[in-house]
């Protein structure tokens, strides 16, 4: 066994690129373990966890750790890494005398000769700086980054208000502006519904549900999950509502949010009522309509007919009841599924529990019925979002399916711009394999997929559904319907 530990000072690559590089290196024949990452505390911890003796390194240093069968394999691993790193950088071959790449939002805006919107997805502690740069350059901002302190959010939104601009986020995963999908966004058709959303996957689910009735979207403006909290007081929600009210293409506004702070709710409701455009308020959570019902209300408000969204649930049902385990990339989809499941199954353990006493332990090991939001802030620090990289989820599918008390797995698969280019190609073999292993052990594990998708999504939603179905999954476009189906299977009630 041979190990290589190398520190390359000042060689920076973003974490997404490095995750992909690490994967390429780990896949090299003869390599047992490999990690190529910036030397953050977190990454160094990860390497120590992999049994490497980590060298002194800082967040600006690239750390390479490879354990392989022999020197040849190490050499192959290094070659694979160089290749992967080179293919990841677009700036090579910089001709002498070319303009150097812009290094700040302000600089990029000048280079572009003006811009309208900045999409900020740098690590949370750095997001404020770039977002302020954008506002200072006259751009509205979508802050995809999470882990941004609330006082920074308030400062950004006050700055935006003073400048007549909009801040979407922080932790805003989705927006659609004039048909352009930003962050994670399904390919939606143009249409009369304007959406203001404090929930990224909530907005995606709503747009996909509208799409099933061929109802399009004028704009979908995210505001960040905290916008309707007492601290932020709906600063961006009100700006977004005003912008949509002014937009001649918007006939109906839907405001999607978790139950807001009561005082903020009253204020925003009063504001919404003052607008000319009708506003449909969609609150998420226990005792509220699910997003599929919200979509139905919106479609009907526009004077059109609603029909239940498409599903494909002809799989054989498990012989016995058992525990339900949900593994989600979308926080709101997870939350909605838990609300539906707990109505029948009672306690649902989670890292984002409906009730504090239902929280999973710090190791997040599932107990009983459980659902995990793998896209939660706490789980995405230093790693890519599960909509981009499914490794965490794939590992966890095997763990959950191997639990003899489990009879149903519930997964969301979110398609659209920004998401994984072919999630089913990775998930389907894993799902088939764990189902087979369970069958070999004399058990049934049913798989239910909530496919958050539109017909125009770049991943080809029909093919994604087929691959998942071939692997034995029941596939639903409605997350609520998927959850109900999974609950019925887990409860041993034929759906």
């Amino acid at each position: 066994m041979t190990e290589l530990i190398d520190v390359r000072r000042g060689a920076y690559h973003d974490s997404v690129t490095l995750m992909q590089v690490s994967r390429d290196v780990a896949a090299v024949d003869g390599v047992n373990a490999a990690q190529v990452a910036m030397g953050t505390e977190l990454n160094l911890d990860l390497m120590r966890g992999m049994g490497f003796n980590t060298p002194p390194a800082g967040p600006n240093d690239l750390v390479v750790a490879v354990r392989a069968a022999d020197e040849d394999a190490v050499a192959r691993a290094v070659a694979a890494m160089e290749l992967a790193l080179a293919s990841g950088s677009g700036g090579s071959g910089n001709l002498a005398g070319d303009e150097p790449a812009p290094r700040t939002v302000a600089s990029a805006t000048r280079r572009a000769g003006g811009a309208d919107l900045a999409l900020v997805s740098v690590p949370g502690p750095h997001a404020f700086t770039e977002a302020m740069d954008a506002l200072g350059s006259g751009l509205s901002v979508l802050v995809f980054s999470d882990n941004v302190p609330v006082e920074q959010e308030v400062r950004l939104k006050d700055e935006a208000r003073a400048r007549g601009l909009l801040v979407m986020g922080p932790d805003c995963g989705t927006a659609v502006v004039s048909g352009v999908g930003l962050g994670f966004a399904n390919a939606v058709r143009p249409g009369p519904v304007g959406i203001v959303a404090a929930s990224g996957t909530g907005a995606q689910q709503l747009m996909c549900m509208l799409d099933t009735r061929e109802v399009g979207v004028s704009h979908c403006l995210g505001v960040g999950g905290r916008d309707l909290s007492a601290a932020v007081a709906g600063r961006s929600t009100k700006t977004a509502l005003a912008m949509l009210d002014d937009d001649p293409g918007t006939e109906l506004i839907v405001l999607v949010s978790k139950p807001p702070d009561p005082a903020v709710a009253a204020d925003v409701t009063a504001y919404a009522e003052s607008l000319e455009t009708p506003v449909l308020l969609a609150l998420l959570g226990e005792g509220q309509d699910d997003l599929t019902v919200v979509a139905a209300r919106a479609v009907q408000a526009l004077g059109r007919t609603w029909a239940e969204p498409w599903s494909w649930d002809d799989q054989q049902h498990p012989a016995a009841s058992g525990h339900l385990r949900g593994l989600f990339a979308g926080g709101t989809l997870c939350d909605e599924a838990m609300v539906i499941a707990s109505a029948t199954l009672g306690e649902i353990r989670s890292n984002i529990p409906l009730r504090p006493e239902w929280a999973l332990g710090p190791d997040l090991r599932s107990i009983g019925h459980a659902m995990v939001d793998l896209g939660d802030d706490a789980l995405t620090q230093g790693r890519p979002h599960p909509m981009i990289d499914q490794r965490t989820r794939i590992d966890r599918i095997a763990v959950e399916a191997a639990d003899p008390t489990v009879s149903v797995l519930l997964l969301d698969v979110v398609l659209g711009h920004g998401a994984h280019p072919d999630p089913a190609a990775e998930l389907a073999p894993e799902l088939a394999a764990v189902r087979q292993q369970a069958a070999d052990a004399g058990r049934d594990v049913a798989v239910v997929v909530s496919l958050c998708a539109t017909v125009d999504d770049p991943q080809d939603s029909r093919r994604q559904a087929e691959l998942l179905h071939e692997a034995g999954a029941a596939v639903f476009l409605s997350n609520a319907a998927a959850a109900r189906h999974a609950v019925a299977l887990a409860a041993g009630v034929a759906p």
Partner: protein
Amino acid sequence: MSLLEGEPRVVTVGAQLFSDALASQAVPVTQVDWRPPLGEVGIEDALTRVIADPRIAKANATAIDRLLTAGAELVDVRPASEALGLQPGQFLHAGPPIGWERASGPLRGALIGAMVYENLAPTPETAEAALASGTGVSWEPCHHHRTVGPMAGVVSPSMWVFELRDPVHGGTAFCSLNEGLGKVLRYGAYGPDVIERLHWMSDVLGPLLQTAVRRHVATAPIDVKAIATQMLQMGDEGHNRNRAGTLMFLRELLPDLIESGAPTADVAKAAAFIGGNDHFFLNLGMPACKLATDAARDLPGSSVVVAMARNGTDFGIQVSGTGDRWFTGPANTPEGLFLGAFGPEDANPDIGDSAITETGGIGGFAMAAAPAIVKFVGGEVADAIEATRLMYEITLAESPTYQVPVLGFRGTPTGIDATLVTRTGILPHINTGMAGKVAGTGQVGAGLVNPPAEIFPAAVRALAELAPPVGGGA
């Protein structure tokens, strides 16, 4: 609220995949080449606090306005004793404050030479002993006295200085007269030739320049900024190349020199000395930049760098929002070309107040204007152009006066922002001479150098301590 009118033009910073996703939708997108900031853990919090400071936008705008609008006119030439009130045994020097113990070879050499020149010591050895003991002698940074000095920057009471005034903001700045290249005091040489030249400069050149300048300004100002503007269009960058500027200054002053009534031989020698010293104008360009950066000082909340200076041991910067405080780190040794048999091992670390030119938006920042000296930056004209272009990433403005012909007369990158340096990790590009590290050696070469990276995050942290908590009001 034009965001919703038509397809947005987007700037992305962070994950490449979002930029790719936009490009695949045929949306115009510009991706930022983002890197983590300079500095240790926690620097992001300091950056956030500084950038969230409600004062910063206006403070920086004011700083930049003053920096760009400041004028520079040569109004007089006087002995330092008179102009600066320097007493015997008092000296000024380049860079941040420093004691004898840590002083570099060239700074020691220049102080030794100044002691001999002022007749405060009969020999270099006795001068050195007096300086080391500190009895009857003291030295302070030029910058603390509205003065700048190239290389060692030593100014003693008998030396004559240029006096420049900013007619817009009312500032005054001083700089010594340039001695030429090679074995000269500012490079730490103190041999008999050096002392003899200094005496001629104070006995003949200084009074002659005074007469000529006073004659000239009685009828028309000597606009140093206008000369600096023109020199950039004639192949000078104002730091390592001052040839065109020198000749333009001589052209402007020559009639007054001739009509000064001084002996023809003195006029001829002065004209030959000025015209034959390619760097004579450096000592006018530097105080011109000092006037501009001084005008931008002391604006609470401002992150604009108002001084970069080196004493041969430490590299220091001052920032508008932190007053007279120096942020220092070890000076780097320049890389470049060497005179004669000198090599890298002979070079002293970076020294001089001349980085005031870069602080003011010329020098290394105008490298693209000076293709003749591109060998300092790698040998290709393209390297010079790239050097200037990179500086736009760390500056807040483009000069409306100083322009680079080869960049389509684009204004030079002006107004270094300590937060931008910290954010991008791009360090100011400084053109410089190189002094021998052994006192008495003189010049060994010229090249380019960067400041030590850590001083910019240090300045940001200091600004953060002076800023209100985030969310403390907008």
